[in-house]
Structures are given as C-alpha cells and as structure tokens.
C-alpha cells in the first residue's frame, strides 16, 4: 500500500547549535527493506540528524519525514513503528534486566517474547541482574533486546558498537541481521550510523557519507566496490612516462605505484601490464577505505546536492 514511501526522507535538513551548522542542508532517502549506512567522522552531524528523525531535536529548516510522516506532528505514531539504540544507553539502575524489558514492553503494542528469551540466552544476560550492575557491553545488549522485540519496521542504530569488545560487537551485528531477517522482510529497514564501518560492511546495501553536516557521497555499496579500486604495481625500475591521468589518485614510491581507479581499472591495468610489472594487484576499496578517501572521491566528480550521485567527469 505505502511500500513505495521512503522510510526516511530528509529534505535540505538544517540544524544549528548557535553559530555551528551541525547539519547543513542534508537530503537523503531510505527505501523500505534497505540496510542503510550513515557514515561520518565524529561531529559530522550524524547524531543530530538522527535526533531530528525522532523529534528529540527540531530542525531549523528543511524537513525530516519518517514513514512519510512528520515526526514533530505525529511523534507517537512514528515512534511506535521504530526502535532506536542510542550511542550511550541508560536504564533505571534499580530495575533488573527482566523488569527493564517488562517496562519497555509496556510501551509497545507488540512484543515478541520468544525473541526476548532467545537473546537473553544468546547474550548470557541474567534476568535477575540489576541494570546498575551491567557492564557497558551488557547494557548495549539489553538495549538491543529492547529494540528488537517489538519487531519494528525501522531500526535506528546510532554508533551502536563503539566501546564494545570485538566478541560483543560480532554478536550485536549478528542479532541485527537476525532481526532484519524477521517476518515481512520487505518492510524491515535498518538505518545505522557508525564509524566502525568494516563491521557492517556486508550488511549495508546503500550508504551516505556526511562531512560537516553536508552529504559527501551516496552510493549503493556493491556499485561503490565495483567502481573504486586500488591498484598496486611494482616495476623492475621506476616507470617513466606512464600516463595515468585517468586515475583518481596516484602515489609513487620508487618502483612501487598505488593507483586509485574510478570505474576504469581495466584500462589502467592494461596500461600497467604493458610495462611488464613484477607485481600487479587490483582490489576493491572496502567501504571503510571509501569512507577514508571520500573527500578525494567526491571531488572526482560527484555532485551530492540532489541526494543522488551524479557523474560529472567523463
């Protein structure tokens, strides 16, 4: 019925703190059933954006729509259909784990007890333990159980895994994948803000990188890995007269070359092979590497203003 309505739609969203423009004209659109990555450095505006989605902050201009609704006007409807795991979670210290979950369930129309029991077991959380006695990792796990059990259409995760040990992080992500797999998968959407990108690499099917409140790059993950390649070549002698003007970036150190290719890796490889390299390899950039080099990639010919990437060069 409304499956074509974007789950999240930002239109020139702007939010200032005093003079600081934390979010500066940000537009993006998340379709149902997607797992959408929202990447940016600390202070790039990720949390501010998410808070605007939840009506925890009001935009100064532009708009945020969730399920096609205005969170400022239909806050309860919007919130009843989503779950949010913030970067630092806090619970009432006097409640036990099971009391906390009962408390959270009381706000929900639907609560899957089976998932609750499964996850408590998986995370080895003692239902009788007081929330105040939980470690940071356990608190995040408890928050995740609270977020997953209502089986919401939208799961919003804000830096959910920072500060967790690798094993807890892994379990956390597997749980998110499980939840994302639940019944009616076409309507399960995940929106995750993180800078621990490699952990979510396989899960993300589309992403936006923001910097200083502005969109830098929006792409489908698979397309990005197909287009952006890193070529490494070693020659018997430092190669002279190679025309690598098609490359996004070239780094040379003596006989070694490192080249960033944008959709033209085949052509560049051909050029390099003709010079009889001793070693030649070509890898896709991981999402994390794309994040790190996003500045270069964005300059190379993406126009971010429309919310959709557009090639300018070539």
């Amino acid at each position, binding site marked *: 019925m409304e499956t074509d309505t974007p789950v999240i739609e930002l239109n020139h969203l702007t939010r200032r703190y005093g003079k600081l423009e934390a979010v500066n004209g940000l537009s993006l659109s998340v379709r149902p059933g997607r797992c959408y990555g929202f990447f940016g450095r600390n202070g790039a505006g990720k949390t501010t954006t998410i808070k605007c989605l939840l009506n925890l902050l009001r935009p100064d201009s532009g708009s945020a729509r969730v399920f096609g609704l205005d969170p400022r006007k239909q806050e309860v409807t919007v919130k009843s259909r989503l779950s949010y795991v913030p970067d630092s979670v806090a619970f009432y210290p006097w409640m036990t784990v099971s009391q906390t979950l009962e408390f959270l369930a009381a706000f929900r129309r639907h609560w899957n007890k089976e998932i609750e029991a499964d996850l408590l077991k998986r995370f080895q959380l003692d239902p009788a333990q007081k929330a105040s006695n939980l470690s940071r990792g356990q608190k995040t796990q408890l928050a995740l159980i609270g977020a997953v059990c209502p089986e919401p259409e939208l799961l919003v995760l804000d830096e959910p895994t920072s500060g967790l040990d690798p094993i807890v992080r892994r379990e956390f*992500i597997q749980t998110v994948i499980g939840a994302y797999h639940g019944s009616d998968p076409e309507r399960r959407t995940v929106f995750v803000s993180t800078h621990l990108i490699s952990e979510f690499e396989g899960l993300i*099917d589309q992403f936006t990188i923001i910097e200083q409140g502005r969109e830098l790059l929006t792409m489908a993950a*698979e397309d990005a890995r197909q287009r952006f390649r890193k070529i490494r070549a070693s020659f018997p002698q430092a190669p002279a007269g190679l025309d690598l003007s098609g490359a996004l970036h070239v780094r040379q150190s003596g006989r070694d070359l490192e080249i960033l290719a944008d959709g033209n890796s085949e052509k560049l490889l051909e050029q390099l092979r003709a010079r009889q390299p001793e070693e030649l390899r070509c*890898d896709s950039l991981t999402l994390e590497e794309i994040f790190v080099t996003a500045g270069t990639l964005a300059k190379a010919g993406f126009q971010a203003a429309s919310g959709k990437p557009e090639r300018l060069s070539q």
Partner: protein
Amino acid sequence: MMLQVDFQAGKPVYLQLADQIRYAAAAGRLRPGEPLPSLRPLAEELRINRNTIARAYAELEAQGIIETLPGKGHFLKKNSSPFSQQTREKLLLTEIDEAVVLAHHLQIGRDKFLGMVEERVEYFERKSAAAKDGK
C-alpha cells in the same frame, strides 16, 4: 558447505557466493539433492545482507544449478542445465577468453596453458570421483 566472502575481491559478493557453490558442485563437494545453507543462518554467519544471498541463489536458480522447494529451502539440482548446448558453450567461451587473455599477459605459452587446463580438468574429475567413493 563453507562459504566465504571477500569485500576487496573486486567481484560482487553475490557472484562470489554463486561461484563458490558452482565450484563446490563441480568438485563434488556439494552433491545433487543436497541442501544449500538457508538464508538467515548464513547471513548471520557471514555477517552479510540476506538480499545478497537471495541474489546469489536466484542467479544459480536461473542457470538451473539449484532449485527452490517452497518451505523447504534450496537444493542442488541433478545435472540438467536448462540452456541449449549453444548457449552453454557461449557462456563457457567468455570465461575461456578471459583466461586466454590473462595467460598472454602473464606470458604463459600455448602448450603450457593447454597443459594447465588439462591438469585442472583431471583434478576436478579426481575430486568428484573421490567424493562419490567417500559416500
């Protein structure tokens, strides 16, 4: 069967999965009628999006390599490609061409190259026979 993915491989993740399953089938590691891993546990194990696995399986199904039994899962089909002989040969030809071009660039001579192909065919035949005996 054990599947793995490499995000840097330069090959789309769904194709990596499809290729590994094709390879396992050719080597007899996956036998006709045997089930493929189901989506959710595999997605959790590999920590990848279910859509990626669904896409790999859809591709294999379109090529007649696996079949989906509703409510039961995905299974390796008996050796029956739905494609005509000509189409099948054409599919293989593109792959062969790629190897020929690569061999040229790597300065692997004609005889050496053909010898290597023969060796690989024998290797797979041996593995496949061993897998049958092991049953």
